[in-house]
């Protein structure tokens, strides 16, 4: 088998291409938008003791253990067009999640959040808190200390969390299809497209192709995260 034999296999039809691009957009937006929140909550869970600490931790991890359909259904109940919060956001800010790609991004963000937050939190916990005190004594206020000392030291965890979150967001299916359905060009991401193809006769070959793309992206993400973490560890060890 030569490369030219492979060419037809790698030639995507317009709907497939749309699904791939949409998937990247949804996962990208979900990751970028949830990263600052994840960093903040990871820091709070790692460093602060406050009432509701355990409850917050549990809520964040719920999507990991609940059936994704339930998470999607919960989002629908909360942010659907007729739901109180959904209607309020639509009327006052013009923000609509239901059956839009933004909703797919939200579902992906919620589902990938626990995976994203865990390495970031572990990273914060592994930093000697007295380094922050040293920075404070040298004149840096809390904000400077966070951005000059704490966050750079947590960078390996932040990078790993981002990549894991992105990979998870790309693969999100259950919550997405429940919350925003499976609309071509709007909410039909790679997993939804694969699902649709498996429901049509003769669709298996196309499904296999998209599955391969999906696996390739996921494996690349894992390899990159591994390399970055190794490099960060080496830097920290002073080499």
């Amino acid at each position, binding site marked *: 088998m030569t490369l030219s034999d492979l060419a037809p296999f790698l030639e995507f039809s317009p709907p497939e291409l749309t699904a791939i691009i949409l998937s990247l957009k949804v996962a990208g937006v979900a990751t970028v938008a949830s990263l600052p929140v994840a960093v903040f909550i990871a820091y709070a869970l790692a460093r602060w003791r406050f009432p509701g600490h355990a409850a917050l931790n549990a809520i964040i991890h719920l999507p990991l253990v609940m059936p994704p359909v339930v998470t999607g259904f919960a989002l629908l109940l909360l942010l659907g067009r007729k739901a109180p919060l959904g209607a309020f956001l639509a009327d006052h800010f013009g923000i609509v999640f239901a059956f839009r790609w933004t909703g797919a991004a939200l579902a992906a963000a919620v589902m990938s959040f626990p995976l994203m937050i865990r390495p970031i939190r572990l990273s914060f916990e592994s930093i*000697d808190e*007295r*380094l922050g*005190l*040293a*920075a*404070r*004594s*040298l*004149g*840096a*206020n809390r904000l*400077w200390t966070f951005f*000059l*000392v704490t966050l*750079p*030291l947590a*960078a390996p965890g932040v990078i790993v969390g981002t990549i894991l979150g992105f990979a998870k967001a790309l693969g999100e299916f259950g919550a997405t299809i429940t919350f925003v359905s499976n609309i071509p060009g709007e909410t039909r991401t790679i997993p939804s497209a694969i699902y649709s193809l498996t429901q049509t006769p003769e669709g298996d070959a196309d499904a296999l192709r998209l599955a391969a793309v999906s696996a390739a992206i996921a494996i690349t993400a894992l390899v990159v995260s591994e390399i970055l973490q190794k490099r960060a560890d080496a*830097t*920290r*060890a*002073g*080499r």
Partner: protein
Amino acid sequence: MIAVDVTLKRGEFSLEAAFESKARILALHGPSGSGKTTLAHLVAGLVAPDAGRIAINGARLVDTAQRLNVPPEKRRIGLVFQDALLFPHLDVRTNILFGRFFTPKAERRVPFDAVVETLGVGHLLRRRAGALSGGERQRVGLARALLCSPRLLVMDEPMASLDYDRRQEIMTLIERLRDEFSIPILLVSHAADEILRLADEVVSLDRGRIVAQGLPSETLAAASRITEGGRFSVVSALEAQVGAFDARYGVTRLDHPAGEIVVAAHVTNGERKVRALINATDVALSHRKPADISIRTALEGKIVAIDEDDGPLAFVHIELIGGERLVSAATRLSVDAMNLTVGSAIFTLVKSVALDERELGAGATARE
């Protein structure tokens, strides 16, 4: 000038401490758990007291009655930690300049080049902080604290994790910092030799209370009797003028009001005064100035106290001519055999070989 009057309670531990000092190097001394580190952290602002006041050179940092508690980043107090706590993701240069970046331009009194020169960290500047040895880390830590031009340097056991030679080296550097940059230093330490060599004054703590404050040689001699180190941790410090170096024998003579101290080394720091540390176990006693004996150092004084219990040992406290005190460890047997009593004149004999140059610290050139 540092003035502290604070109380703090954390679970079982309670701290109640009030002191004032004008010393150039003030030591906080005590066993672990005595609260000396907590007290240093209170001064630096890393911990807030339940009640009390803290002021440095007239600047109020804490006054709970007025709800004043200046945050650590506004206190301008340089902190040096036992393990240096350099920022591992930054190189040495960035580490050193970290505090300077946050110091208002008008208050950047301490020049970068002078610090790098004095602490000998020039060749390390491009290295990563994680790649330094213990002594190097500590020097970089000192440079970093110094370059924020602090009103006070707080050093929390800065030499506790270093070996003997590195400790001597860091002590020499601390003396140079004191003399070159005239920044007062608060030194937290449990090591008597560090305090005797460096400090002008010591505050001694035990279980959260101040048990003594005063000259290091007097305060520590009293305190170390009860500590775990026993007879080997009792050390006296004598201040003397560096005299002539006898090249023929390789010895240096130090002039002390009570007599000549002979050191088996070439003491090089010129016209300075030095502080010689003498272990109580290296001091012998004699009623007359002996002639037929190998010991060349015989200092004259009188016995002011004999500290003994049921054990075999006695600590004889001697006030030398000139007012300084020296402690000699002897057996109770010899105290009785020699008929030593408080008030009697005595010669203290110190073997020259027990003194070595590294035990000599540069003495304070001037005391406030």
